[in-house]
């Protein structure tokens, strides 16, 4: 991969309360942009106090609709995350993999991602 960057979730959201899908989308957009450039991402959850599945689905879960599991495993890592939050993230990731096994959803996600990058 071509180098690495650190994304501070607190800085992106502007708060330690990371609960909304819209805020998760902001984190996602940075991760996805870096992955497209083959840059490794370290996501830091330092100072994050509250997390929801809605936030993590938008931030990380939807990556599985755009990128392969192999690329995500090689290119994304998380640090400074509490054990309970890691457990939540693991469930979000498992649900996301399951979700995108539905070919109709996968195709829709790919089409949407393509449209978004065309618009950029």
């Amino acid at each position, binding site marked *: 991969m071509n180098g690495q960057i650190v994304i501070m979730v607190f800085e992106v959201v502007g*708060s330690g*309360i990371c*609960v*909304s*899908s*819209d*805020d998760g*989308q902001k984190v996602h957009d940075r991760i996805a942009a870096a992955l497209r450039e083959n840059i490794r991402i370290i996501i830091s959850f330092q100072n994050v*106090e*509250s*997390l*929801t*599945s*809605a*936030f993590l*689905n*938008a931030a990380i*879960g*939807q990556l*599985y*609709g*755009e990128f392969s*599991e192999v690329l*995500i*495993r090689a290119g*994304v*890592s*998380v*640090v400074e*995350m509490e*054990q*309970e939050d*890691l*457990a*939540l*993230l*693991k*469930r*979000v*990731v498992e*649900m*996301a993999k*399951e*979700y*995108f096994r539905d070919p109709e*959803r996968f195709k*829709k*996600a790919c089409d*949407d*991602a393509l449209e978004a990058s065309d618009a950029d």
Partner: protein
Amino acid sequence: MKIFLQEINSDYEGFSRLIQLAAQTAGCYFDDVEIDMSQTGWIDANMCAPLGAILYKIGRDINSIQLTHVQPNVEAILSKNGFLCNYGWSRKKDTHGSTIEYKRFEPKDDRYFADYIETQMIGNGIPEMSPGLLKKFRESIYEIFSNSVIHSRTMLGIFSCGQYFHKKHRLDFSVVDLGIGICTNVHDRRGLVLSAEEAISWALEGKNTTKLGPIPGGLGLKLLREFIIENDGRIQIVSENGYWELSEGQVNTRAFPEPFPGTIVNIEINTADSKSYRLVSEIRSEDIF
């Protein structure tokens, strides 16, 4: 139009009475709607959320709303949580720290909602919970709010209210939307023909989700259910004609003759719960993806 409102508890009967109120006023436009509360001997304060949602809908249809003959004990509680401020009363101070304010939020108000929860839960001095429980409780409420915004696609807002019962060590909190109900979502998005109560059960099971599009979903209500079972609390969900309740580990479902125009999620948590909510086995960040 004049409507008499009976006692409203957080139970099937209470929800049923509110649904009747919604049905009776559904066709009102440019009218004076008087809610006579002479027979309302009690309202569980958290039920201000569904009551407020129904009254908001009546007002949205350009009706004037008047609450009359409010009983002193009801007035005392509903003035403290700010509910009656919407209908001409002044606010009373909550000296016991037992109310969680009645509020209406726009779907985009997630940060405002988060501030409200943080202020009400921490700044207000209620309730006395272990740090682990408080974190789980706050996150559960955020899950409910996000779930309402994402699934109901409401344009009329999200309504919430809570009450802390010190002696019983119980805290009730309700979140209400006036959007698309669970049964309609399950039918339209998954093609399943289920009764309203079956649809709620479906949404709380396994990996079921009505989500479509690039962002996955389907965990919020399951996390809530797991937490409430562990906490020995209670969840009540009313969506369209369906009633779903989880209490003491048992699920009970019923149907209402008329639909609620949206979804109500009411949770009751056991604040005396001293579990740490810490994981038994360690999860390594390298094993996540």
